[in-house]
């Protein structure tokens, strides 16, 4: 997500990764005993290890919370490991360690679709089931991908929200992440089509790029408002962008006059939802995502599903899910946050 960050702090990241490699080795030793036991026990105690993009990230803290809840429900053993920074190959040693420990399932949010593939394949050969969530790898490197939302779903919910908030007519603009951000560009394309098809009175006048940087996004919001005096709404399909835009709007003469929506996290947006700058924004619920991923891992380990299209399994309180094309399971529609439910979340 933050390419610039990664590039400039490469040196620091390398140092961190090196130190983490050591930490990880230490961790594997202390866990060795229990894993040996579970390996011997077979199906009774399913060991599931979560490997998020990085630790200390409230988003992944929430998904791991959901994963842990699910694992406790079905009586398995939950573990979470991960690097401090989300650099492409930082996850490799954690995957190797998990494979050596012989965990039953590894639930990964990939920092890079390619870089961790070899390690995942080795783990898979050792008998570990691989489930990816949030960020996928290449399809042949994992057994199942838990998709938080489809590009169509994400694009549609944002278009729907802006249409509701500006009365389905007027000028809107998009504040995106970097100009080369793959996800955002795919969503923007779909949003354009959706606007053309279903909302002929909404005109998309500009797309600007805040590079997922607080300061740049903030300044681009100011520029948008100045260069388009008739602007009715802004869509920001990136969590950094929407928070920065909300901060600018909340202190501006346009507060309450220009609608803002997009993808955000409740902690970042709480202040602005409460002061009336933002009515509603969307994201998936990471807790449900982790919960579903853990149940999917369990179903794979137990042999209930193999990742074939049409396989179905039950994920506790979330109900039944069916595996779709490319061994993908869809969590569902994006979740909308507004002032009525925002206090139920902490991520």
């Amino acid at each position: 997500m933050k390419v610039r960050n990664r590039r400039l702090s490469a040196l620091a990241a390398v140092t961190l990764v090196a130190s983490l490699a050591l930490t990880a080795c230490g961790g594997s030793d202390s866990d060795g005993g229990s894993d040996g036991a579970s390996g011997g026990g077979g199906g009774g105690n399913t060991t599931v290890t979560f490997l998020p993009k990085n630790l200390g990230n409230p988003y992944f803290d929430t998904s791991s919370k959901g994963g842990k809840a699910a694992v406790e429900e079905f009586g398995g053993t939950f573990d979470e490991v991960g690097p401090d920074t989300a650099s492409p190959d930082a996850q490799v040693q954690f995957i190797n360690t998990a494979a050596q420990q012989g965990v039953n399932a590894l639930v990964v949010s990939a920092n890079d679709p390619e870089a961790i593939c070899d390690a995942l394949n080795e783990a898979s050969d050792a008998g570990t089931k691989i489930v990816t969530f949030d960020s996928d790898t290449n399809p042949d490197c994992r057994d199942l991908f838990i998709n938080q939302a489809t590009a169509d779903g994400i694009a549609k919910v944002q278009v729907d929200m802006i249409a509701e908030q500006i009365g389905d007519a007027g000028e809107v603009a998009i504040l995106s992440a970097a100009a080369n951000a793959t996800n955002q560009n795919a969503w923007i394309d779909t949003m354009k089509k959706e606007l053309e098809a279903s909302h002929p009175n909404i005109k998309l006048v500009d797309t600007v790029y805040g590079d997922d940087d607080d300061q740049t996004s903030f300044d681009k919001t100011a520029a948008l408002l100045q260069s388009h005096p008739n602007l009715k709404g802004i869509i920001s399909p990136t969590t950094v962008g929407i928070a920065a835009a909300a901060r600018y709007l909340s202190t501006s003469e346009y507060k309450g006059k220009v609608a803002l929506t997009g993808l955000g996290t409740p902690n970042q947006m709480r202040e602005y939802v409460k002061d009336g700058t933002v009515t509603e924004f969307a994201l998936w619920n990471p807790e449900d995502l982790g919960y579903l991923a853990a149940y999917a891992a369990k179903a794979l380990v137990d042999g209930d599903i193999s990742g074939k299209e049409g396989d179905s399994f039950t994920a506790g309180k979330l109900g039944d899910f069916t595996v779709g094309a490319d061994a993908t399971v869809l969590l569902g529609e994006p979740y909308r946050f507004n002032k009525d439910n925002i206090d139920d979340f902490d991520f």
Partner: protein
Amino acid sequence: MSTDTLLVEPSAVSPTKRIVGELLRSREIAVAVVFVLVVALTTIKSPNFLFSSDGWRDLLLTPCLLLILAVGQTAVIITRNVDLSVGSTLGLTAYFTGKLFSDHPGLPIIAVVVLGMLFGAVLGLVNGLLVAIFKVPALVITLGTLYIYRGIFLTWAGSDRINAGDMPKDFLSLGTKTVLTIPVLTIVGLVVLAAVGYYLHTARGGRELYAIGSDPDAAVLYGLKVNRRIIGAFVLSGALAGLAGVVYTARYGTVSSNAGLGMELQAVGAAVIGGVAIFGGSGTVWGAAIGAFLLVTINRALPVVGISDFWQRAVVGALILGAIVLDRVLSARQERRLVAAREETRSAR
């Protein structure tokens, strides 16, 4: 026959003419004119740029972060050093500020500002000590601390971020509060500018910074306390980067681990555009301040004028190159003139 022949005879031109001539040739004025042109042209295109209440406020408020950094940077560059760690110092202090508020909600704002500056000053002191003691070029030392400070920041913050909700409303409103339509943060920046500018222009310590930058070896031979002055310049730069960190938090209301990334180059850029010579010994904080206003305002104006995102950076780059080339041409011309003057006095003798 007098023994102390002057290298250059006092100018025979009348004082008024000389002042006018100096003003016309001064880099500060040239940059200020460009700045006014940018604002004027953008305002013609979009009157909101200057005349709406948001536009006026942003025009004054947005550059103040870079202004504070550029002032500190100038003090360091004048001594023929450079402080590349200010971006990381800013980010680290910004996060520190947010943490202070979220962990100790009752802390008065002024205490947080002072603590932020002290924190920055300590980081600057580390730079200064390393540069002064090990005699390694500041470029290398501060490039190292740039990564070290950013690394500490990443380890400390991870992907945790400080959100607006974690901080008191009074502090956040400081980000946009105005007195007689002048934003408070801009006033803070201008006070810093005036204080440092006055010190550099008049105080003994300030003049010694120029002397060190003009010729470090001569400064040592002359008995100036070179190390102490250089450490002082770095501490000042660090403290101001700390202040900028506090300002960042108040203005943007959110701090993540990429706060201040790349700001060090903007600070150097602002100083260079404002006529501070990268090899030390000349330039003023006034120039750097106008450079900061120009750099930030151009960045804000280009999207309003309708120049695409992709070209904006190129324009800023061209500006910096232009400033450096101009600097080089001017100093080469000055050098030729001085050499000619010396030849003349020699042949006259």
